[in-house]
């Protein structure tokens, strides 16, 4: 009887510990509490500041250590395209739009491990300086495993994510990052 009670208590304790850790993982990585959405892009209103709260602080610790405050830079992350599909290297994506309202911006792809994706061409990002614009100042950036022209960022094999960095964002963007005019992410085709 005593052994049965002890075993049950042990099982309950083990279940509690696992459940607690799962709860943390789910709240931080799955639901990204403390962030706002703008199309396929997600950003935080308080990243880097003491007001960020425990959920956002934990999210930043895992996915964006040393992020700056909103007045200095805004980081938009996307793990899904504009239609809600998970970004995956098996597909070709077109990131289309116009320059976001900022002194400088860049678009970078990261693997599921949150590091830059290895590729022989070393094409990790496209920025204000390197993007090729069309006659009407709009641009289309291809994100794919295979070489995709001048505006190309290499994707890896599996799931990946994109980060759009806006340094010295315009006043309207800084005031309400959820309403910024940002490029859309469209899936073109898949293998």
């Amino acid at each position, binding site marked *: 009887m005593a052994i049965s009670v002890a075993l*049950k*208590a042990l*099982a*309950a*304790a083990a*279940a*509690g*510990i696992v*459940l*607690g*850790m799962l*709860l*943390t993982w789910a*709240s*931080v990585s799955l639901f990204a509490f403390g962030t706002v959405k703008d199309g396929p892009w997600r950003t935080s209103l308080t990243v*880097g*500041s*003491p007001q*960020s709260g*425990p*959920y956002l*602080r*934990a999210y*930043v*610790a*895992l*996915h*964006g*250590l*040393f*992020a*700056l*405050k909103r007045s*200095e830079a805004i980081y938009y992350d996307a793990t899904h395209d504009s239609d809600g599909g998970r970004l995956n290297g098996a597909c070709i994506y077109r990131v289309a739009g116009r320059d976001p309202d900022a*002194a*400088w911006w*860049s678009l*970078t792809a*990261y693997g599921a491990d*949150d*590091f*830059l*994706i*290895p*590729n022989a061409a*070393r094409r*990790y*990002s496209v*920025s204000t*300086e390197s993007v090729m614009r069309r006659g009407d100042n709009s641009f289309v950036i291809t994100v794919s495993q295979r070489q995709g022209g001048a505006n190309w960022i290499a994707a890896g094999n599996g799931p990946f994510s994109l*980060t759009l*960095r806006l*340094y*010295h964002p315009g006043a309207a963007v800084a005031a309400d990052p959820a309403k910024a005019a940002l490029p859309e992410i469209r899936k073109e085709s898949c293998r």
Partner: protein
Amino acid sequence: MNGFFERNWMYVAIAAALALAVHAATLVGLPDAAMARALDMLAADGGYNTLTHAPRADANSRKIVRPSPDLLYSACPFDLDKAHGALRVYARVPRGTYWSVSVFDAHTDNIFVENNRQARGGKVDFVIVGPKSGLIDGGAAHAPPQVYSPTTKGLVLFRTLIDDEANLPGIDAARRQASCGTYSDGGM
């Protein structure tokens, strides 16, 4: 199902209470643990209170998640206990490109940032003080301003934008003029 809960309500309560406690502990401990790990990894290059200049980020850069390949990073992990309570940071601002110096405490909070638009006279010069020293007597009127860090450990991070590939050697040389070290007797 109801019978299970009635018979085992005490164990269910133990599991639920422990789950909440572990959730709260991991949530609060995660940023500090991630920061401590990052600081130790960065300090492995040159030690604490020393500025090191990372090569341009690529797929082999595995110390800090989501680095930008368009920026050059220089980092000074600090430990105010080892700096006698105060650390001086000085840099001349490179011209014509985005540049910033930021300070993060051990909880991951960005407690200070100054960029190329804000820096007066084309330079930044400040002293980081911590909870043990508090604000220090700056002495002379021209003593550098002080930044208070709520934790004794943290990071000073310089970002310089590579605005043009052709400018990379010049930008790299310019960032190496910055310094970060123990502040004593009003000087470095």
